Structures are given as C-alpha cells and as structure tokens.
C-alpha cells in the first residue's frame, strides 16, 4: 500500500510530539510504502532532517511556504475565467457553500502555473473587488486587498502543485497539510485519512488573536480563513482520528461530521523503560523533571517560578529541564535570566539528552504547557512509573485521572494553566508524600500498559488503513 503522509511544520524538521508520532508510525509499517509530503515554513530547512528516514519512505516531497514568496510574476496577464470559476472562487473567498472538490478542479482548470501572475491579473482583481463590495465594503479596501492576497498566496500555490499518487492520503493536521490531502484525494479518487493531534484552527486562532502584525478588524478574516482550511479537511476526510475524547468533541463542535470521528490513542512500548537506571539510594535530593523543548508554548517560565515556590519549602529539591534549548534561543535566554532574578538554585538545563538516562532518577515529573495534544512525554513518564503534575491542557487530565472506562485511579495532579502557585503546591504535596508518589506512579503505569500501548496504536492504524482502502474500492 502506498501511503502519502502529509506533515506541516513538524516531521522531519522539528523535534516534538507529532514528529515522534510520525516517525513511530512509519517505522512500524515496514510492509507499506510511504511517500512523505512535508510542508515547512522556511526553505532554509530543505533537506535538514532531524530524524533518520526509514527505508520504507520511498520519496520525500518538500515544499516551503516562503519559497512561494520568491516567485516573480508579470502583471497584466489574462486568464480564461468564466462565470462558474468566478462564482466558485468568490464563494470560497466569502466562505460560503464551498464544494471543495469543485473548487480544486476549478483552480487547476484555470491552468496557471504562476500564482503571483494570476493574483496580479485583472480577472482575479475583479473577483476580489466584487467580494469586497458585497461583504466587506466598510473595510479599507487596500488592506483588505493585501490581506486577501497574502492569505491566499500559499494556499493557491499548494493547489497547483503536483501531487504524488498514493492509495491513501494521510494528513497529520488540517490546515495546509489537509489541503494537500484533500487535493490528492479529489484528484486521484482515493481516501483521505486525517489524524489531528491538536486542533489546528483553534491553535491558529489563538496565534492570530495574540499577533500584533494583524490589525483588529482583519483578525476575523484571518481566523475565518483558518477555520475554512480546517473545514476543508473535515469535509474531505473520510475518517478523522483524534488522540483523545476532548479533541474529538471540539472537532464535532466546529463542524466535523460525528460519524467520521474516532479516537486512536498514542502508544508507547512500556517494556523499553523496564531496565532504565534508577535513582541511587544515597541521592538525598528530590528530583523533579520536565521532558520538554524550551519554547514559549511549554511555558518554562511558569515552571521556573513554580519551582522557586517549591524550593522555599523543600530545600533539597532539584529541577531538571530535559530537552533542546536551541529552538528559541531568545526564550532560553529569558528563562535563564528569570532563574537569576529569582535566585533559585538547582535548576539544570540538560539540553538535548537521551531521556532514558534521566527518567529513572526522577521523583516527580511536571508539564506546564499552554497547549498540548496527547503528550508523549507523559506516556514516557507514566511508563517509568513517575507521578505527574500537569496543566489542564489537551489530554493531560484524561491521562492522569483516567476516563469512565478505567479505574486505575490518579496518576498525578492536574492544575490550571500558568498558575505557578497551584503548580508549586501540587509539587510540594508530592514531595512530602513518598507513598502517594509511588501509588500514583503505579496507577499511571497500569493505565499506560492497558490503554496506551504501542501495539494497540499500530494495530488500530493497520486495521484503519486496510478498512479505508477496502471500503473505498467498493
């Protein structure tokens, strides 16, 4: 089976949860052939893979959003655009009754190779002007016009790319990756499988609300646009897999057909963690650790403040931040200076390390992310029988507290996002109660071994792939 796996801003350029997931998926299906379609942000990343590519990956297509910016176009070109094209494109701009299949075919039928040139054509200007007059007439036209162009440039550029042939188009996000998968599915009449780790349109929405490069009244246009991209995937995919229940509910809320949704948890091979080095008996410290990339979304600063709180009460606490520090050097600097300002001792940034060398020595693990899907870090920690303190994001609560089906009890404590005092309190609680730590560690281990195993994860995808291909042929 040829599977076209589409990633956006993750594998193989970025280390992280989604990338590890992709890496594990491909590695565990030697019987299938994978074609990677990777959408990256910067062309400078081309060919810079941070993972060893598996042998069953037969082709890697790379496309970078910034390479579209280099395209030069002449203005004044004419295109054959009929009333139907106009209607389909302007419906898309308005976000109304879009038949994506029709839209893809329409764009490819216009037959332009150079998107800039098309955007600089009279035909396209007329469409934008018409949509503006009907829907956005109160807005400054110049800004609307430039916004629309910069918004659609990457999208249209993706729409004119060659899509590799495959039996299944499997995208790991909605967004641009979802567009490619939808397009492949439409062009070659093959199933589109979507696995959504986070909720793409929600993540973009948060970004845009915070962004200062978008003016207030344009924010809605951008948010609508990313919702549109998201909905394209929900419309075109025949199965939408989420990692946990909460996300499944959100997907349904924002427009995904309930029938399409299903859950496949992340999985982990518990046995791999059986023999890791344990804490030495003469180690008088209480070791608190975080398996984490030092980036803002993980909210390392709150973590440091929380530890400062802990340190005031537990003098023999020690804190390990285990993960790459080079992704956002500026943020790392800020974290360092926060450590200096708070004058907390015993905070150790390990940088990129082999987690297995450290995990066993930990007494407590923490995770303070602002946003998460289903963090692999928690699965790893639980597999090592470590209790957790996490913020209430993604599936953290489900992982630590369990859901209706399991009765393994608490595997840690869930606290509100960015509340360093609550985080600190929870950590202190675990610090002073060794019995509780052990109980929670055991609970977590049971849960992971029974619900989140690697084999289950692989097995479910295997069945899903086969079922999709079969159903599609019928």
């Amino acid at each position, binding site marked *: 089976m040829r599977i076209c796996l589409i990633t956006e801003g993750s594998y193989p350029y970025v280390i992280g949860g989604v990338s590890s997931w992709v890496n594990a998926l491909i590695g565990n299906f030697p019987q299938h052939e994978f074609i990677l379609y990777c959408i990256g942000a910067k062309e400078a990343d081309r060919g810079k893979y941070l993972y060893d590519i598996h042998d069953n990956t037969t082709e890697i297509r790379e496309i970078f959003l910034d390479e579209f*910016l280099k395209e030069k176009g002449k203005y004044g070109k004419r295109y054959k655009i009929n009333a139907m094209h106009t209607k389909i494109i302007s419906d898309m701009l308005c976000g109304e009754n879009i038949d994506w299949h029709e839209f893809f075919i329409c764009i490819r039928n216009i037959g332009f190779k150079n*998107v800039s040139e098309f*955007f600089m054509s009279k035909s396209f*200007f007329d469409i934008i*002007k018409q949509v503006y007059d009907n829907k956005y007439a109160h807005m400054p*036209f110049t800004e609307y016009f430039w916004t629309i162009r*910069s918004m659609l*440039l990457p999208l249209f550029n993706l729409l004119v790319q060659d899509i590799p042939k495959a039996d299944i188009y499997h995208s790991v996000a909605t967004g641009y990756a979802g567009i490619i998968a939808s397009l492949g599915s439409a062009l070659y009449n093959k199933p589109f499988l979507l696995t959504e780790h986070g909720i793409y349109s929600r993540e973009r929405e948060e970004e845009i609300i915070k962004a200062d490069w978008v003016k207030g009244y344009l924010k809605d246009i951008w948010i609508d646009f990313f919702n549109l991209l998201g909905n394209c995937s929900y419309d075109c995919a025949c199965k939408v897999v989420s990692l946990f229940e909460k996300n499944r509910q959100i997907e349904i809320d924002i427009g995904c057909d309930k029938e399409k949704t299903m859950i496949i948890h992340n999985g982990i091979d518990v046995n791999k963690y059986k023999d890791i080095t344990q804490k030495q008996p003469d180690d008088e410290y209480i070791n608190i650790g975080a398996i984490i990339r030092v980036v803002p979304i993980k909210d390392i600063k709150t973590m440091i403040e929380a530890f400062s709180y802990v340190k005031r009460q537990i003098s023999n606490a020690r804190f390990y931040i285990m993960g790459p520090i080079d992704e956002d050097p500026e943020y790392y600097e800020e974290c360092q200076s926060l450590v200096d300002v708070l004058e907390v001792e015993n905070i150790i940034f390990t940088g990129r390390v082999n987690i297995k060398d450290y995990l066993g020595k930990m007494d407590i693990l923490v995770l303070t992310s602002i946003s998460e899907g289903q963090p692999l870090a928690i699965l790893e920690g639980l597999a090592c029988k470590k209790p957790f303190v996490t913020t209430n994001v993604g599936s953290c609560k489900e992982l630590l507290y369990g859901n209706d089906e399991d009765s393994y009890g608490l595997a840690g404590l869930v606290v509100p996002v960015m509340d360093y005092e609550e985080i600190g309190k929870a950590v202190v609680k675990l610090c002073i109660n060794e019995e509780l730590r052990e109980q929670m560690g055991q609970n977590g281990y049971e849960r992971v071994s029974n619900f989140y195993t690697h084999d289950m994860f692989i097995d479910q995808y295997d069945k899903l792939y086969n079922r999709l291909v079969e159903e599609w042929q019928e």
Partner: protein
Amino acid sequence: MAGIGFQLKKLFSDKGYLYKLRAYFFSTIVTTGPIIMCTCLIVFIQLFMNVVKLPYIQKQLIIGSIVYPFVFSQIITSVFSMVITRYVSDLLYKKEYNKINASFMGVITLSLIIGGVLGFAFYARSPLHIRYKIPPYILFMELIILWLQTVYLSAFRDYMRIVKGFLYGILIIVITIYICLSVLQLDVTMSILIGMDVGFFVIVSMLTYYIIKYFNKLGKDYFVFIKYIDKYASLIYISFFYTLGIYGHNFLFWRSNLGVTIFETYVFAPVYDVAVFYAFLTVLPATVIFVVNVETSFYDRYKEYYSLITTNGNGMKISKARDKMIYVLWQEIRKLIEIQFFISLLCMILGNIFLPYVGVTGLSLNIFIILSLGSFCCFMMFFIMLILLYFEDRKGAAMVISFFFIGNILLTQVSIRLGEVYYGFGFFIASILGFAIAVTRLTNYLNEIDYHTFCSQPVIARENSGVFHRIVKVLYKDDTEE
C-alpha cells in the same frame, strides 16, 4: 519649498480678468521662459548677422555651431532626464537631500563623458579650423549641463530660478559679443561663438551654485542613481526616443535633396528646419495650459485618489474619488485640445501672412502649415503620455512613443520619396497616430485604473536586482538601500 502648483493656485484663486491675465502671463514666463528666450536669442543673432551683412557661408557656420550643440545636447541628456527626475523627486519625498547634490554631480559627469566622446568623434572628422571647433564643443558641453540643471530645478519646481538664469545669461551674451567686436576686435563669427560660450557659462555657473547651495550637503554616492536604470529603464527609452522622434524627421531631411552641407561638418535642410522651428513655436501655449491645469485642478484630484488608497479609504470613497479624477482629467484634456487647436489655426493664418516678412516662403511655408498640425498632435500625444506616466503606466507610454518614433521615421522617408507636396506629412501622420494611440491607451487604462493601481504591485515586495544595482553595490558596498 513652495512648488509651482502652489504658487499658481494662489494666482488663479483671485477672480477677475486682470488677475487671470496676470496669472497666465506669469505661468507663461515660468513654463516657457527659457524656450522663448532662446528663440529670441537665435532671432537676435540672425538679425545681427543680417545687419553686419555676414557672408552666407559664415552665417551657416554660425547657425551650425549653435544648432548642433543645442539639438544633440538635448538628445544626449534625454537619456537621463526622466530617470533623474524620478530619482530626485523620490529623494525629495524621502527627504534624503544630501544625495541630491551627489547625484547632480554624478549625472553631469556621466553625461559629459558620453557627450564629450561623441562630440570629439564628431569634430575629429571635420576639416574645420580648430578655432571653429572648440567654441561649439564647449557650448555643447555647457548645454548638456544646463539641460540637466533644468531637470533638477523643475524637480523641485523652481522655474523662476531658471528664467532668471537665462535672462542674465542672454544679457551677458550680448555684452560679450559687443566687447569681442569693439574692444578685442575679433571677427563676427568668433565673437558670436565666444559670446555664446561665456553667456552659457554664466548661466550654468549660477544654476550650479544655486543647486549646490540649496541642498548644502554633498554626499559621496554620486552614482547611486544608476540603480534606477534597472527599474525605470523604460523611462530612458521613452525620453530618448521621444526626443529622437522630435528631431528624427529633420535628420532624414538633412540627407534628402533639401540638405546642405557646410564645411563637410554641419548638414541642414534649411527649408525644412525653419518650418519645424516655427511650427514648434505655435504649440508653446499648450505647454502653459498643460502645466497650469495639471498642476492645479487635476493634481488635487489625483492626490486625493491615491491618498485614499494609501490611507485606507473604503471602496466607495475610492470609487468616488476615482470618478471625479477621471472626469476632471478628461475635461482638462478637452479644454487643452480646444484652446490649442484654435491657437494653432490662428498661428497658421498669421504665419501665412507674416512669415514671408522674415524670409519664410514657398515650400517652407507649406511645410510650416502641415507641421503646425503635426506639432499640435505631437504635443497632445506628449501630454497624454505624461499623464500615463503620472499613473505609472510606463508600458503604455513606451508603446505610444514607439509608434510615434517608428512611424515618424518610416513615414518621413515615404514622404521624401513622394516629393515636395508631401513634405511634413510623415511627421504629421506619425503624430496623429501617436496621439490616437495615446488617447486610446489612456481611455483603456483609466477604465481599469483601480486594477492597475493595485495589481501593478508585486504580490510580495522584493529587493530590486539588476546590473546597475549590482554595480552600485560594488561601488558603494551599499546594502541598505530600498
């Protein structure tokens, strides 16, 4: 720096005939002063040569020594004039005044090198005595500088300075000629040539002093302006081929049976050239009207439209401003055509009556009539082309000029073949053609002006690159620009 538009508007805001008259008088001086003065100068020299009864061949030598520098200096400077106008007005806009003086020095140096080499080549093959070669060569170089200076002065709209410069210069010419003749006892030919050199030297010096002083600072980036050649190559094309088109038909007639050769150096077609000279004078009023109208009523509408676009007006406001601008523009163009057409007709009639008194007769007079109509069309074409450039339609302007230039060359050739009756028709038809194409282009362009305004910009702005950008980079290690 009050621009001419501002000054003119003040003038025209007063009602009443007397004020209007004063206003037009002032505008005329300001816009066509130098041309009128140069014309007077040439007429004066002609009369003077008649009074002192200079032999025919000497007269022609003097005419050649003056006309050739005038014509060819204009052609040479036309290469840079539009690009440099653009560059200077951008610098003014960005308030980077220190670069203006530097570019002034740079463009003069470059033009003098080009002109110097070509002028040298021209006189090298001439059998004239060296003392008849040096003065026109100097005059040629002075005029190259002068035309470039007028570009600078009109870029910051100080037309009065130009007029004054010319006025003093011409006075000096007359005085110098008198001194050469009566005190130094030189011959008439030398006196006139030296007088011209000295007079224009004074003009050029005065204006140089003025420009340098005005911006005070002199940066080091003399040749940075050539970067504009990459982006605005079409402006070079437009202004060069327009100027060449203006004189092209003369050059062809010089080689026809009307041609006369003086000392194997200067070639003319006096019968044709004289007609051209007077025909061009008939359209001077149009220049005045154009400058006044464009600078006053149209420019305000134009600015309104573009400022709504840059300051985020909504679609409705932009549409209204656009319609108003287009309405005013066509109204002004129609007015211009009507008034100038009437003036041209009047001039043709008056020319028929009075030109014979200054020695224009027969064939020349017939050519004058048809060339007057031709000049009318040619100038209208030119004005519309300037409007196209206002709207950044360089492609359209280049198209118009191409048709005009090629048409002029081909049709003039044809008219020479067809014989005397058709002399002048080449220029006339080429001009009418150019005019018609210009109007069509402007109409089409204005119909889609919103589209052109928005979509001529690249989807993503990017650094300009080209040969001249790279040269500038090497010269100045400049990586901060644009």
